[in-house]
């Protein structure tokens, strides 16, 4: 696998990064990533991974686009209200970068469907809006040793962390979650957290930089403050407690 002249031109500014070059760009091109959710977090995540040249994006969302989504879900627009979000995402992303492959999955992620939907990928990105589904993905990621980037947002606050259990705590070790509800959300806040997730993904896939392993960054956009919280494994964690390093 090589980079075409067009790809070298498209990615030249990031390839200028120390340690990146052709080799890291080819790593991105060979990578296969699962994005769970094509909404507020999924939009910046998918757009920045697509424009950075991640070879295959497998994006999953069973929801239909509503007008009230459009303050934050920038993959979509007014003309697509009623569309499935994964299908809309595929159309946008292929326009943004025709050199990549985008697979749109329109199914719900459940304990029964998760293996078939995710399959073998290099990385999973959590762009979901509820903890029950996050924990289904967390279990799959832990048991299949697939790195998993978690993000969450509410109003103007959010958090992000890089999970690769058992080297790091899993999502269960970090948070059991919060009740699902309709919550306030400012689109730009989802943009900030989504961009952090995308950058964590690009660092992992390219091998440039260091990830938020065993740390959780909590960002409060209302006060523009950050907390960097160390995270630990729960010794008897029901998900990763029995997984050996």
């Amino acid at each position: 696998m090589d980079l075409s002249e067009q790809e070298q031109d498209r990615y030249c500014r990031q390839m200028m990064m120390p340690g990146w070059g052709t080799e890291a760009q080819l790593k991105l091109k060979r990578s296969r990533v699962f994005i769970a959710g094509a909404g507020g977090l999924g939009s910046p995540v998918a757009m920045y991974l697509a424009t950075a040249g991640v070879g295959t994006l497998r994006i999953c969302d069973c929801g239909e686009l509503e007008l009230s989504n459009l303050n934050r879900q920038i993959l979509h627009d007014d003309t697509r209200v009623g569309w499935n979000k994964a299908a809309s995402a595929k159309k946008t992303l292929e326009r943004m970068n025709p050199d990549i492959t985008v697979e749109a999955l329109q199914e719900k992620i459940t304990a029964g469907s998760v293996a078939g939907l995710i399959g073998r990928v290099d990385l999973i990105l959590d762009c979901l809006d509820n903890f029950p589904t996050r924990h289904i993905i967390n279990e799959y990621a832990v048991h299949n040793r697939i790195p998993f980037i978690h993000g969450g947002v509410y109003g103007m606050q959010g958090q992000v962390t890089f999970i690769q259990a058992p080297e790091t705590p899993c999502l269960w070790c970090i948070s059991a979650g919060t009740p699902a509800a309709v919550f306030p959300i400012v689109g730009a806040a989802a943009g900030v957290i989504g961009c952090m997730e995308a950058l964590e993904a690009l660092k992992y896939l390219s091998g440039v930089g260091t990830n938020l392993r065993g740390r959780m960054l909590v960002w409060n956009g209302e006060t523009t403050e950050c907390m960097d919280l160390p995270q630990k494994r729960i010794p008897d964690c029901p998900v990763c407690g029995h997984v050996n390093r």
Partner: protein
Amino acid sequence: MAKVTCKYFVNVLGATKKDGEILDVPDGMDVEQFLDFISNKYGPDFAKHVYATGTVAGEPFKTPNIYLNKRRIQWLQDFPAGVKTKVKDGDEFWFGLIVGGGC
């Protein structure tokens, strides 16, 4: 009495109407008792964020969803007694920190 700092984050601000306070806690109270106390103080809209419930690895769970002195109470390396850990003067509890939105 022990003086305990409570910080309230976005998930629970609707119930507390303030982002923090210092509470006097009777000596000898453990974390579980303190969580019951503060859940009663602020009611069900607060209490639903104190404990997380659901299913993981096929098993139902109910577990505290709080931080004590910047650490989860489930980290037995730090809190060998878990929720039976005694509340001390100067402790700091965080409620409603981890947010779950994204769609």
